[in-house]
């Protein structure tokens, strides 16, 4: 019974860490910084979400059919039919031989603060759950 509860708590904490890391990764990747790019932009699409102007989605498709979601400044910087090159984790984006600097988004910077706090709370709850087990057994 102890083992089952310990496993359950551990499984949930690990899931929480996974989704917190997911938030960091997906907000990071929209800056293109972690990505390696090499292709011509063939299609750009600005899609509206639930709150237009706030949660809009910016998509760029390359000639190798690779489609990425990017932050608004990247979307504006890349024009159609331009050759886009970038090394993974580089902050320089080459567009038709000209280099522009790319930066992490506000989302990413805020997630860097928010996600560790959320995970910390998961850990506190996990400790409470395990302490609860000990006190119940003591009863």
């Amino acid at each position, binding site marked *: 019974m102890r083992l089952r509860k310990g496993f*359950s708590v551990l499984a949930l904490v690990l*899931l*929480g860490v996974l989704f917190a890391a*997911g938030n960091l990764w997906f907000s990071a990747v929209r800056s293109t910084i972690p990505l390696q790019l090499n292709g011509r932009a063939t299609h750009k699409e600005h899609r509206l979400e639930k*709150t237009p102007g706030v949660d809009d989605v910016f*998509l760029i498709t390359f000639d190798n059919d690779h489609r990425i979601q990017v932050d608004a400044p990247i979307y504006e910087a890349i024009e159609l039919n331009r050759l886009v090159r970038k090394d993974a984790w580089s902050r320089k984006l080459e567009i038709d031989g000209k280099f522009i600097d790319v930066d992490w988004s506000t989302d990413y910077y805020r997630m860097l603060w928010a996600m560790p706090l959320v995970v910390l709370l998961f850990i506190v709850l996990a400790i*409470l759950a395990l302490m*609860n087990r000990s006190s119940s057994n003591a009863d």
Partner: protein
Amino acid sequence: MNRKLVRVLAISILPSFVVALVFYFLLGYRRDYLGHYAAGYGGTLCATMIVLFIIPTTLYRRVASMVVVGSTILCIAAGAIAEATVFRIAKFDEIDFCNQSLGAVLAGLAVIVFASELKPDDTAIRSAVAIGAIFLTAGAYFAFT
């Protein structure tokens, strides 16, 4: 109000409210993030409490924590399907999915804290379901306004 009910109310409200404040103050310009988190929390809390209500008292202590994990994973999967179908407006948003799943995980952990040893009485279960429904409604409000 008895002590056990106070404990259920405190654990089902306080941690989730603290996380909501983190979302509000650090990511408040994206109300949909807060909305997805709150909806994931509320939906999972409701569903998990209903599932625990069904478990026979004789089996309860042996299976409760595993049932909570299973129920949480099912809620995360249901959230993924909802995000990919009825709530797919521009595209499947991975960050919305992560936020609603964080809410689901928090609900699972909170339920293990207050309900894995002894089956909560009917009043406690009804109270937790009501709290879940309030979070779900608040989540819909923040996600769509």
